């Protein structure tokens, strides 16, 4: 089992989640985040004092999938999240040691 974590632009969340529905994934967990990549933010002025706005809002998606589906899901997310502009985001995967579905007590792949 793998945990896919995707950092995407907030206004692309609709499309990415739609794409994941199309793939009938087990579930989705979304957390609000802020971030920046190589390209640092810009400067704004508030009452005459300058301040750097580096961290821009991002959506952080977590999807647990079977090892077999990792690539399909990752590609689908990337395709839906792409806007060809700076800050489109990153997707990484981590191997899970165990998974438990609380309601039924199922474990491992059945719990996805």
């Amino acid at each position: 089992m793998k945990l896919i974590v995707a950092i995407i632009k907030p206004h692309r969340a609709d499309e990415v989640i739609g794409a994941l529905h199309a793939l009938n994934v087990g579930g989705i967990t979304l957390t609000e985040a802020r971030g920046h990549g190589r390209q640092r933010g810009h400067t704004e002025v508030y009452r005459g004092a300058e301040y750097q706005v580096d961290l821009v809002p991002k959506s952080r998606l977590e999807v647990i999938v079977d090892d077999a589906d990792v690539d399909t899901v990752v590609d689908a997310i990337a395709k839906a999240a792409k806007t060809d502009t700076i800050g489109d985001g990153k997707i990484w995967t981590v191997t899970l040691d165990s998974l438990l579905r609380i309601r039924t007590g199922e474990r491992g792949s059945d719990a996805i």
Partner: protein
Amino acid sequence: SLTGSTGTQLTKDQIPVTQVGLNQLTSQATHSEVSINLVWLLMTGFLVLFMQVGFAFLVTGLTRAKNAGHMMMMNIAAFAVAFIAYYAVGFAFQFGGVGAIGNLGGTGPLSSAFGHGNAGVLGLHGFFLQSGGAYDVGVMAFFLFQVVFMETAGYIIIGAIAERINFRTFLIAELLMGALIYPVYGMWMWGGGWLSKLGVSHGIGHGAVDFAGSGVVHATGGWTALALAILLGPRIGKYKKDGTPRAFPGHNLSYVVVGTLILVFGWMGFNPGSTFGASDLRIGIVAVNTLLAACFGFVFAMSWTWSKWGKPDISMSCNGMLAGLVAITAPCAFVAPWASALIGLIAGVLVCYSVEFFDRIAKVDDPCGAISVHGVCGAWGLLAVGLFADGSYGNGWNGVPGTVKGLFYGSGSQLTAQVIDMAVGFIWAFGITFIIFSIVKRWKPIRVPADVELQGIDVPEFGAYCYPDFVLSSETPGIGEDYEPVSVGGSSAGGTERT
């Protein structure tokens, strides 16, 4: 006497029983009556001024958090910019030739207008509140009352142009509202212009009758908003590929409800204030009629949304209350309480179907329902005068003897005048706005760029988040419903419909 105030010396000592004594008492009585009227005119004027807080809360609550700063800045900039335009030229155009205002001790100076007697087109006194001796107590109080009415028309358009208009274009719209769009039509109706003189000139009822401004303020604002909304086009993502509208829930329903309740409070200045004085005891009836229409409009919208969509819709119910308020504004002094309840109820019906019409059929994206609440129900308010006026008020209105009567009380011609007023109001407000901003559109973009609109307008246009300390949630809860589920393994069918 106390430093800082030189009130007229109160007649402490005995007044002799002579003509001189009696004249002194008469002048003091008249002075008192003007004072009472001034107190009422200014206090109600201040309540109307306060409506800007209600509008600010309402429209900001009905739009998304990423644009809250933009919405609020538009509301306060509208106040300042339109005020200056009206002070410079607007007031003069509208009331330059209105002549003496009875209740305010006869303000003579505003006495020159373009166009002869009964077909006045444009006032020509009172520019910068200087020309033609406008620097006079009565004129100033009158200006205060009239400027806050104009401001209301200026706030109305914000609801329909929200979340996509750029600030520069918005300022132009407000300048035009204060200098041209509102005052010209306002002159025809309240400045002694040809619409109000229809009764005298062509014997059509009492001419166009609009007690507190369903047409002059609300319909004007609504139709101007319609023209701008059409030229702007819908927000990104508002209409799915199949043309059905997507919901963009307002970011703060407590703002929406509080804004509506503040507007109810402000409306107590809007309608009852339009008697220009407390010497006209009708103000009690006007106030009650106003609240009745508000409550019945609310109850209808709440029940209708409850039955039609399964749950009472909070923002539509608030729109129902506002629709009732807008509709009762023109007839409030001429109708009985039961009629006000009915007018409010019908306004509730109209606003519900009108929002659906503009959303689904006309496909004009109106984030706050401003066009339906103020345009459609403003027009209905004008019509209502021509139907329900029961002849208990309005003796000699617009120079026509006898009280104002509607169709149900035997006067078909009044209805005709109201219909003419509706049509002229629409053609003027919608027409002039559409023409001017079609030109502006060709010259400079009137919308913010797509990426700015998606990211939220606050930072790009004003350099500051409205809620920097709160974590905002990404896209609206509505999830990309455009995708049909297909089992895993097949290539994904992710749509990239959005630029």
